[in-house]
């Protein structure tokens, strides 16, 4: 049994005395007995921290795919990037970790300024003038973007490229049940979105992925043109590492950029907490979901930061708010700012370039293997999809036995018949980060050769 309560028995007694009560239970006397729990929770008694640590060590050991035990080639929106000791040390400073949302700016300049810097960085990467203080993850950022488009256009039809991550599309569908949006998924052929296959003239939004989840770098001009023609918003769901070297969403004329910020200093963490990136044009600023930090002055005229345009938010606007988001992912946003500060201009470019170099090196090696084919003939940056002669999940299992996590089986992301792909069972998504060495890439190719032989 352990807890973190300071009170001694004597103190509890004195405090109850002061309240004229006999026991702690009396504090709850006004709760109707009928609903009160008798006999306590059906949860075992508490353990000491070292006891619990032993339980958790057990969970960890049961994860064959844990870091250090396996070389990671899985991507699909979550990437095994270098997070240096310095970023961990700064991001875990307790002042950042144990603060709440900066409601009292006079004592929250640390977090506020860090978010302001984060917003600036994301705005620059997006090529768009304003970014918010973070959303939950890429998938929910997409939902917010669709809601923004719905609000901006008063329309409900959302044309979403099937190149958008299947989980994100799934999340969009889930939430559309509430908003009444209709999600139209535009299929891919050879990894390219077939915009021409649908009539988008009633579009609230046109959503493209850049690169798409198969890794393909699509030309976004058509999509942009369709959005303009329809008067809908053009939304780009982008890989923020790719944004280090590829044209920005803003360059492509996007109204909204959103993405998954995990690659900026957040560990793989079995999928969360991650970081929803969101940036848009100034036209949409009053519809921007979530918190925004702005610069201002204090009463002595010193530069200060504060959350602003609060009238959009749920606590003020209630049922008319642009979004219901309250708790967001600030700590991840602060960490992203630190990681981007560590990388700097050249570092981000180097990371993106090295990912691409590794991916292309591996692509060349594995597509030379008999029976292994590229799913798409199009250009890609740092990940690619392979069609194997066996089920991808079986190949993953085989290669895992040799300490390599070969990638993500497309079938675990999308159901059979997903408009992005045919023959999904045999498709393997492979990602290469700047951490992968040539030796590891060569070993991968060897193992894959054996697995498909």
């Amino acid at each position: 049994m352990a807890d973190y309560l300071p009170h001694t028995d004597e103190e509890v007694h004195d405090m109850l005395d002061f309240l004229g009560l006999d026991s702690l239970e009396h504090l709850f006397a006004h709760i109707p007995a009928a609903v009160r729990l008798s006999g306590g929770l059906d949860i075992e008694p508490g353990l000491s921290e070292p006891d619990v640590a032993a339980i958790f060590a057990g969970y960890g050991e049961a994860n064959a795919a844990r870091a250090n035990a396996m070389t990671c080639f899985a991507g699909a929106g979550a990437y095994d990037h270098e997070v240096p000791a310095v970023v961990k040390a700064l991001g875990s400073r307790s002042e950042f970790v144990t603060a709440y949302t900066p409601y009292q700016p006079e004592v929250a300049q640390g977090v506020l300024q860090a978010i302001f810097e984060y917003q600036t960085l994301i705005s620059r990467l997006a090529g768009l003038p304003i970014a918010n203080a973070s959303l939950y993850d890429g998938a929910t950022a997409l939902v917010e973007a669709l809601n923004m488009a719905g609000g901006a256009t008063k329309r409900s039809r959302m044309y979403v490229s099937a190149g958008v991550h299947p989980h994100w599309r799934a999340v969009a569908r889930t939430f559309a049940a509430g908003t009444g949006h209709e999600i139209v998924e535009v299929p891919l052929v050879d990894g390219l979105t077939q915009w021409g296959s649908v009539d988008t003239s009633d579009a609230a939004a046109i959503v493209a992925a850049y690169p798409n989840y198969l890794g393909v770098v699509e030309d976004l001009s058509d999509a942009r043109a369709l959005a303009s023609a329809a008067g809908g918003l053009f939304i780009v769901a982008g890989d923020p590492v790719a944004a280090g070297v590829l044209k920005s969403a803003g360059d492509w004329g996007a109204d909204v950029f959103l993405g998954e910020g995990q690659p900026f200093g957040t560990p793989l963490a079995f999928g969360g907490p991650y970081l929803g990136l969101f940036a848009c044009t100034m036209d949409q600023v009053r519809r921007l979901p979530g918190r925004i930090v702005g610069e201002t002055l204090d009463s002595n005229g010193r530069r200060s930061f504060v959350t602003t345009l609060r009238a959009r938010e749920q606590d003020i606007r209630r049922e008319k708010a642009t979004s219901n988001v309250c708790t967001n992912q600030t700590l991840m946003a602060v960490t992203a700012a630190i990681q981007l500060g560590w990388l700097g201009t050249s570092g981000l470019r180097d990371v993106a370039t090295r990912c691409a170099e590794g991916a292309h090196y591996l692509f060349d090696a594995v597509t030379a293997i008999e029976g292994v084919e590229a799913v798409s003939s199009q250009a890609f940056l740092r990940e690619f999809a392979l069609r194997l002669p066996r089920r991808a999940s079986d190949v993953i299992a085989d290669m895992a036995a040799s300490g390599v996590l070969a990638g993500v089986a497309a079938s675990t992301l999308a159901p059979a018949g997903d408009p992005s792909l045919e023959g999904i069972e045999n498709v393997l998504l492979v990602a290469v980060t700047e951490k992968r060495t040539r030796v590891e890439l060569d070993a991968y190719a060897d193992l894959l050769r054996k697995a498909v032989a």
Partner: protein
Amino acid sequence: MAITGLPGGRAASVPLMGHETEPTMFELSVAGRSAAQLRTTGVPTRSLVDMVGAAHVKDEPVALSDLSERDLVGHFTRLSHRQFSVDLGAYPLGSCTMKYNPKFCDAVAADPALNGVHPGAPATLTQGWLELLVDLEEKLCAITGMAAATLQPAAGAAGELTGLLLMRAYHASRGEDRRRVIIPDSAHGTNPASVTLGGYEVTTVPSNERGLVDLEALRGALGPDVAGIMLTNPNTVGLFEEEITEIATAVHDAGGLLYYDGANLNAIVGVVRPGDMGFDIVHMNLHKTFATPHGGGGPGAGPVAVSARLADFLPGPKATRVADGTFDWVAPAQSIGRVHGWHGNAMVLARALAYIDVHGGDGLTRVAQHAVLNANWLRRRLADTLPAAYDRPCMHEAVLSATALKAATGVRGLDVAKALLDEGFHSPTVYFPLIVDEALMFEPTETESPQTLEALAQAVERIVARADTEADELHHSPHHTPVSRVDEARAARHLIATEDAAAR
């Protein structure tokens, strides 16, 4: 020459000494510097244009901020010294449960055997994670008195919306089209916002003079088009809805469901369970009750637990113990689908489980008891200084009101809150809930000692005592914080949300 380029250099100073502002990382930046060190890989270099084609390659790299590692460390360390936090002092911010979070949970979350696992790895390679999620779900169900739960929602608000979509799916499965959701006027802002996003209309019911839902008004608002009601209990004025059974019966009789906003669960863990009160859907704010530090605004996690009749609708796939005792991802039969890109905020979930395991059932109950004890003690202690909005035993938070103080001296609740910063304490929540005039909502939490509560009370007393003679100084407080009172209106009027906007 660049060397005279302040404030770049200035920044490497002024840490403890208070009142200087810190330059932004962009002001510290000097083109050509870099802290990054990447692994030597031996992979041959290749031109980007070759790889992706000229049409896609950015002409100029995006200018980020170019810092030495030393300046990066200095900058963020100094920023951290401009930030209040639980670890520095008491943070009695009502509704937010800013308790002390054990460092042990940080250590759990730092284990690469958990946080180094890719979410897309197959279940066979991530059995430890799946088991952890199953164990947590079981314990959350035991705590809430529900049948099953989803761990996907990333925060309380996400949980709310998930719950409303569950409500919708449930009614739809019965062929019913219900359009309204009832919420009390004291509800947290996320509740009405979620209702809208869930495709429902908000019907607000007033609170009575006791700060509780007006049962008659509620009965009046009910009807066949009501999908359900959202409540938090204890409610946002810190009071237990004593007529909860009557409320539940009324709503259920009308064919509606009861949604429990679990943000205030800290008050009742082990004392009373939402399921036993008649709730059908419950979200929990793990980052409040189960000790994930708030991180300056997040991350959190907002699992949603439901009664048996709703279990089949839960988001999926869910980690599930399968026949052979191993674990796999299984989608509930009528699942509403995914509400998160992966499996939810997994590391927050792990922290919560560690916290639950350390405390156990008995320890969690003590948490609630001490949280309520502290709040009541503080309420009573300040009774003559700042009276409670409702003069009755509260639960884990005490909503006081500065109405009388304002009338007598002109000093408002906000002034008291700001002056408290000068006293070295974080402010309580002000002006929420909206139904209390000049509300000051104190939530001391169970981890603050009686000595701290006394010191806090004395600080409030000092401030109130100054109101008569020093009202003007209080209007302009705080004075001893890293910055003095901040001009919020100016920020909104002249929006500068990025360094580049500042430069324009």
